[in-house]
């Protein structure tokens, strides 16, 4: 029993120390984010590459998902709501699901699976190959050069992709709706806009900023936490995915409570 307690306390100590180390990492990263403008000559290329990879290259997948989600909501929703004579509620559901709730979460999941894993793997391999150490050796702060552009890249891409998912989801909804009931595009947009509040869009976009920052920082932290061996890289990548998914869900719930309480 004593032995078990001792081990448990040691594990707790090590978890706490890693947690505080992570908090320190967040603090330094935020400090370095403010210095980004002064170092843009070096870091801007990294940022542009990150946006291209995270944002631009995800467009096809996001479009497909947006169209599919919009279409599924209409197919399922109309058949159900017509029974109660509440067909118009479909617009409210469309806005709540795509713009406010599911859109940012789905976009975040896509970014975690595509870019979060790529960031952790890339940084992990850089540590193993001593490339991070080499940056320090030439006096370049690895957080300023490697972490900050990636965080900005993920935040900007997530913000833009979510808007794109919104548009493609609503268009997908319209395409299917026009098959079910003949409806002009203007009518669809008019009905949709009466149900959509500016605050819904703002809340959705605030979520993308929070999710983007969390994914960026968690992925970078786990990548840079690799110590010596390349076998640690996939382990850290898995940890990065699980932690990012958990925090996106936690933040989503917290922001949902916050939204409904105001």
């Amino acid at each position, binding site marked *: 029993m004593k032995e078990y307690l001792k081990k448990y306390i040691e594990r707790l100590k090590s978890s706490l120390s890693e947690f505080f180390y992570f908090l320190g990492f967040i603090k330094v990263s935020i400090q370095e984010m403010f210095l980004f403008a002064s170092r843009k*000559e*070096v870091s801007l290329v990294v940022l542009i590459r990150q946006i291209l990879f995270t944002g631009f290259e995800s467009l096809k997948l996001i479009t497909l998902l947006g169209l599919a989600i919009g279409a599924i909501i209409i197919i399922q929703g109309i058949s159900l709501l017509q029974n109660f004579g509440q067909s118009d509620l479909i617009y409210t559901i469309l806005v709540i699901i795509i713009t406010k709730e599911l859109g940012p979460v789905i976009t975040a999941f896509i970014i975690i699976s595509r870019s979060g894993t790529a960031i952790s793997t890339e940084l992990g391999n850089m540590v193993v190959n*001593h490339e991070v150490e080499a940056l320090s*050796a*030439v*006096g*370049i702060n690895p957080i300023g050069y490697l972490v900050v552009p990636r965080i900005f890249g993920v935040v900007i891409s997530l913000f833009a992709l979510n808007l794109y998912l919104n548009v493609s989801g609503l268009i997908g909804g319209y395409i299917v709706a026009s098959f079910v009931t003949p409806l002009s595009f203007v009518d669809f947009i008019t009905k949709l806009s009466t149900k959509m509040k500016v605050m819904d869009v703002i809340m959705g976009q605030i979520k993308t900023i929070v999710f983007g920052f969390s994914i960026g920082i968690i992925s970078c932290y786990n990548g840079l936490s690799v110590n010596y061996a390349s076998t640690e890289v996939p382990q850290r990548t898995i940890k990065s995915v699980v932690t990012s998914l958990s925090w996106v869900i936690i933040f989503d719930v917290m922001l949902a409570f916050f939204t409904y309480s105001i």
Partner: protein
Amino acid sequence: MGEPIITLENVSFKNDNYTVLENVNVEIEIDRFTAVIGKSGAGKSTLIKIMAGLVEPTAGNVKIYGVDMTDYDSPQVNRIKKKIGFSFQDSALLSNLSIRENLALPLKYYFKNMTEKRMTERIEELLDKVSLLDSQFLRPAQLSFGEQKLASIIRSMTTNPEILFLDEPLTSIDATLSKKVLALIKDYSKNEWTTVIIVTHSPELIINEAKKIIVIEDKVIKLETTPKELLAGGRVDGMEIVNDMFENYF
């Protein structure tokens, strides 16, 4: 004796539970060519990484120009780091950048006002010295290991650092490349404002260039001497690495 620019006081370093260095005290003087020697795994690389402020010691103090290098938040540390160049045992070039971009990175970071023309001149001058001009747009993986190492050595020199650390620059490269590296190091160390600290197994380089030799054994600095004193004294009792290395010179 020159003025000390690097001072290590009671420095120890543990890797997990394994002690690499224990209670090391050493001073490196300005305008000196210092060679660090020791058996493989003796802690030579760790020692110079600690000297350069790349690795934090488990205990003790590291000062460069009197500035505590373990105080990472200090702006003075960043200022000092600009004066340091470091070439690793393995090339450690950034794999997603071309050789030219690798060399340009420290220049862009430090000399924000440097013109593109001046930067190109500096990079091409260095690449030309080691016959890598034709490979400047290639990625590190497209070069041989020796060429990568050459690129890594000249990267450490791009900003004309006052303190240059070289970790086994002659290991794993052929005789022709070795000649180029030797010429490059000799040329660089001629400058009055440079201090070179090198980890090497080359007795020729040590005897011809070094002004100070540091021998590491059993986690501590066993001997600090000069090539002249070492050769005059002959074989050193119990110091296998020194005796084997300079066998032909005693």
